[in-house]
Structures are given as structure tokens and as C-alpha cells.
């Protein structure tokens, strides 16, 4: 269980998040929706420990981690795919994976973990010796997802996994995320601008606007409401 209690994140005078609360149970996807600058990324950064939290708490399975540094949170099983396709671009695909595995939970041997990744995304095996920065956008997103899952996380945070990708790649990426969430039974949180896409696979959703929660509920409810006005209105 991942829980946020009245969380506020301020960057100097900029109030990125104001009193946001959330409960995300394992075994389902939670969608965080909202326009650019709504606070989606700040919420995720607050969970992984790289955003300035000024008030409120972050709890993992009831344990308050608000004061823990990022590596300690990573050891507790938080994996965060940051926005902007963050990878070690000068390192090869395999070095990225090996590094992620080395500082992860290491539930399996490296060879077995790599084999699993390569079976899922064969293109990554073909490009194993290529610098990550030279991959296409879709391949980079596959590598980023694999770098988070190879760590055997318990709390998976994905920041805009569809951003800037071709629709067919987006489908493949979302197929993988849905499978992984169902199979692993962990907490998965996805930040998305494309609301319908994320809500279709989510158990619950939450819409942020200028750092505050304006709408929250079950995924399907929010999705059905889209034909009406509520979801669209909360973006304006």
C-alpha cells in the first residue's frame, strides 16, 4: 500500500502540490491525470524522494518514509521511471540494465533477469551493446520500463510512458505495463496526459489541477464521465 497524506511540494514560491492525499493498493494501476504543470511529476518525485516536501507524509505499507533519502526508498522497493526518458545515455543498453539490477532487489541472478527482459523486448538484445542515447524513442521507453522492472520493485512509478511515441508503440508499452501490473501484483502508478489511455487500464484515477485534486474515483467511472463534462472540465 502506497499512501500520501496531505502532501505539499513547493519549489521556492512555486506551489507544485497542495495537500494531496492518495491511497494506492497493490494489484492495480492508479492513474494520475492532469494537464502540463498540474503536479503529476512532483507527486512522483515526492514518492521517490527528489522533490522538496514541505508538509504531509509519504507512507509505504504504513511506514513513514518522508524523511528517507532517495536510495533508501529505492531499497524499500520504489522504482521511478522519470519524465523525459531519463537513461544513462552514454552507457550501453546492457550496462543500464546491469546497473539497475545491481542496485535493485536482486531476486534472480543477473543472467536470468536479462533473459527475461530480452524475451519480452527482443530489440533490446539486438541493441545490447548500443549506447542507450542512440536508441529510438520507443526502444528507450522499453529500456526504461525494463530498468525499473528488473529491480523487482514493490512500488512502480511511471511518468508519462506514452510521451512522444507512435500509437502502435504506445499500445505495446501499455500492453506490457498492464501485464506486468497484473502478474506482479505490486502498486503501479502512471502519470498521463492522455486520460482515456491510462483510465482504460486503471483501477482508480485522480485528476490534478494546479497542484490540487479536482476529481478522483474508480477508473471506469472517470472514463464514462468523459462523455459528459466532468473530466474535460477539470482540465480547463
Amino acid at each position, binding site marked *: 500500500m502506497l499512501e500520501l497524506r496531505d502532501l505539499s511540494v513547493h519549489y521556492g514560491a512555486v506551489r507544485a502540490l497542495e495537500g494531496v492525499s492518495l491511497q494506492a493498493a497493490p494489484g492495480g494501476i492508479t492513474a494520475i491525470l492532469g494537464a502540463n504543470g498540474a503536479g503529476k511529476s512532483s507527486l512522483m518525485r515526492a514518492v521517490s524522494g527528489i522533490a522538496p516536501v514541505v508538509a504531509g507524509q509519504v507512507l509505504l505499507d504504513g511506514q513513514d518514509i518522508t524523511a528517507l533519502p532517495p536510495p533508501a526508498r*529505492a531499497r524499500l522497493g520504489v522504482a521511478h521511471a522519470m519524465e523525459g526518458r*531519463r*537513461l544513462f545515455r552514454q552507457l550501453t543498453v546492457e550496462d543500464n540494465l546491469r546497473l539497475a539490477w*545491481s542496485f535493485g532487489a536482486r531476486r534472480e541472478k543477473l543472467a536470468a533477469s536479462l533473459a527475461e527482459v530480452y524475451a519480452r523486448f527482443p530489440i533490446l538484445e539486438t541493441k545490447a551493446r548500443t549506447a542507450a542515447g542512440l536508441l529510438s524513442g520507443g526502444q528507450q521507453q522499453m529500456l526504461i520500463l525494463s530498468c525499473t522492472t528488473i529491480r523487482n520493485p514493490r512500488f512502480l512509478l511511471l511518468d508519462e510512458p506514452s510521451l512522444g511515441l507512435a500509437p502502435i508503440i504506445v499500445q505495446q508499452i501499455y500492453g506490457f505495463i498492464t501485464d506486468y501490473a497484473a502478474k506482479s501484483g505490486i502498486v503501479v502508478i502512471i502519470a498521463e496526459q492522455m486520460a482515456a489511455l491510462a483510465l482504460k487500464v486503471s483501477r482508480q484515477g485522480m485528476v490534478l489541477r494546479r497542484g490540487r485534486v479536482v476529481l478522483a474515483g474508480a477508473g471506469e467511472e472517470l472514463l464514462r464521465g468523459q462523455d459528459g463534462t466532468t473530466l474535460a472540465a477539470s482540465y480547463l
Partner: protein
Amino acid sequence: MDDFFFSLLLAGISVGAVYALIALGLNLTFWTTKTLNFGQGSLMMLCAMLTVFISSQGLAITLAVVGSLAIVAALGMFIERWTVRPALESSGGSMGWVVSTLGFGIFLQGMAAKYFGSQAVAFPDVVFTAQDFVTVFGQYISLQYLVVLAVAVALILAFELFIRRTVWGQAVHAVSLDPELALVQGIPVRRLILGSFMLSSILAGVAGVLIAQIGGTVDPAFGFDLVLLGFVAAVLGGMGSSLGALAGGLLVGVISKLVGGYVSTAAEHGIAFALLMLALAVRPQGLFGRPEVSKA
């Protein structure tokens, strides 16, 4: 090949290898924090001075060297914690560390002058004496120079293997590329930074002992211009490149010794900085500096 040229060449290669060690130490902290410890020269001096002092108390010379290295390593961590970190944390991205690390170096130099005296003291022979030599093809080769060269090259190789082949070496590389991503991936960045300053100081300490071994004496001012030469070597080779540090070190060492021998010893340091200016004008990324690899 005439004897004079050959002896200059060997001396150049030996001190050049030591410059490379200093450059590696500078590279290491540059990787983890994008800062350089400009007090590196004082650590070299202090390590050599402490070695002289400890061995004069009757301890075996090897023990004295190891003990001095341990003290210098601890000082390296102190420098990170109290001169670099506060400067980096205050008003983001300031260059305060340039002054604070240099200032701490000057402080150490002053302390050394106060407690060990400002006169040059003789540095004990660690393995061979200055009179030991071997003859190869009729050339006299000082064994001390050979030992310095061997130790420096062995350390550079070990360092390179550590960075390339171990998980922790990879982690250092990762921190240099994207510290925030490294943090989120569970890499203990803080400990790596502390470790990098420790290791960098040890490299400086070893370099200090090796140079003192060649020169035969050590005084509190020693090391200050040496670290500048190490800096020239690092920039010449390409800041952050180990191969570049070695090439840059050898280049600076050999050229400055040749100029010192054939022109004037007064020009020895001048030529190094002329090289630096030339490098910055013609190839600012250094001999082995790589451009960014990226695709939008």
C-alpha cells in the same frame, strides 16, 4: 641516441606518470561532483612530510607510507564534508569550492610549515637509493625512476579496471552522467562522493611520495605547482578521461623535461602552461574528450 636525451626522456616519462596519477585523482572528484580539489597539492606535500616524520620516529618506511596515506584519506573525506559540500549546497551551482578547497590547501601548507619547519627535509629512500641503476643497451637507468614509473602505471591500470569492470566503478560513471537518476535507482550517491574524495586523496598522497622519492627532498611549498601540472595533464588529455590523464601526464612530463634540459629549467613549467593554452585554443575537449552521445 645520446645519453642526455635518453635520461631526460626517462625522467619525463617517470614524472609524467606521476602527473597522470594526480590527474586521475582530479578526474575522480570531477566525475562525482563536477568539482576539483585544488588543495590536492597540499595533500601530496602532507603525505610526503608525514612519511618523513613518522619514519624519523623509528617506524619502518613502508609503515610510515601506509600510515600517511590513511591520514591523507581521512583528510580527503573531511575536505568533501566541510569545504566542498557546503559550497555546493549554498545558492546552487556556485563556484565557492574553488576558493574553499584551495584555502584548505593553503591552511594545510601553513600547518606543515609551523610544525615541520619550512626548510626542505631529505626524503628517505623507500626501495632503491638514488645511486642504484641498471644498464640497458649501454644506458644508465635509475632504478628509482623505474619504480616510480611501475607504481604509477600499476595504479593507473588498477584504477581503470575498477572503473570499467566493477559495479561500483560503473556506479561512479553513472553518477557523473546523471546524479538524480543514480539516486532514484538506489545508488548511494553520498557515499560514492565521499569515497571519491578519499580515493582521490590517496592518489594524491601516492603521487606525493613518488615525486618526493625522485626529487629527494620535500618542503611545505612542494606540491602546489605539481597539482597545477596534474591539472594541465587532465585538461590536455580531456577532463574525465583516464586514458587522457595518462597521455596528458606523459606529454606534460616529457615535454617539460626536454625543454628543461635543452632550453632552460626555468622554462619547464612555462612550457606546460603554453601547452594548456594551445590545447584550449585548438582542442578544448582535450585529446580524448568525447562529445555527448544523444538522440532527441
